[in-house]
């Protein structure tokens, strides 16, 4: 019997790591991955709460999160490729000019 709060702590940790990654990392792809990590943290808490309150809709919601994450990563990666093609670099600090 695992108390619910353990799951929440785990998802909190995942989310925290995601946020720090999002803030610290300089490589665009890594930032993007930390976003995915955040989403996973959220998914975990969704399923944990669904389990606690015996509502399957929590799990269904996880699907929608996944679909959105998939769509987002597809477009995001396309953008990253486009950025790389024009800027020759993936370092976020160098991608700061609106003009080429």
């Amino acid at each position, binding site marked *: 019997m695992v108390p619910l*709060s353990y799951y929440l702590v785990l998802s909190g940790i995942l989310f925290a790591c995601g946020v720090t990654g999002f803030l610290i990392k300089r490589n665009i792809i890594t930032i993007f991955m930390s976003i995915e990590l955040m989403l996973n943290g959220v998914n975990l808490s969704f399923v944990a709460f*669904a389990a606690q309150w015996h509502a399957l809709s929590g799990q269904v919601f996880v699907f929608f999160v996944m679909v959105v994450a*998939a769509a987002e990563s597809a477009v995001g990666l*396309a953008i990253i490729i486009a950025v790389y093609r024009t800027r020759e670099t993936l370092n976020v600090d160098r991608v700061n000019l609106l003009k080429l």
Partner: protein
Amino acid sequence: MLHLIVFSVFGLVCAAGAVNLLVQRHPINSALSLVVVMGSLAVEYLLLGAEFVAAVQVIVYAGAIMVLFVFVIMLLNAGEEDRTKGSRVAMLFGIPGVLIGSVLVAWVLLERSGTGNVAVGALPGPPKVIGWLLFHDFLLPFEVTSVLVLIAIMGAVVLASHPGAVQQSTQSDKREG
């Protein structure tokens, strides 16, 4: 008791993977640590009884999205993250801030978020029931997300395709590879 052991094992693996993602300098390593995180999460979902979610997590997240990431990393041949000077402000506030934040969140979760505990497989999520839910109660969101995915596909195709054959010829030599 078994449930607790398995949970804590895979919880630790998950946390370690997440931290590893931060620590690693090379994006491919962080990508793989993220795959590890997703796998252990899938196991956590199984512990919670959400089989279909776990399976889909493995197939969709680990199997498709992360492959895309690895794919892009390979394609762009992204090297090590060069250490540009980290702004002191971020260092100064960042780390203590995060620590305090997480401790606060942890304390709140442990102390105050109710005492409900979850048994193994507390809420079985067999595919049949989930399927029923998905196509009855959540039909509209389902259709909307399908449109979303369609748009995402089109967007990705347009963005990633070379900007027109004409310019492509001039820039191709410089950029190929």
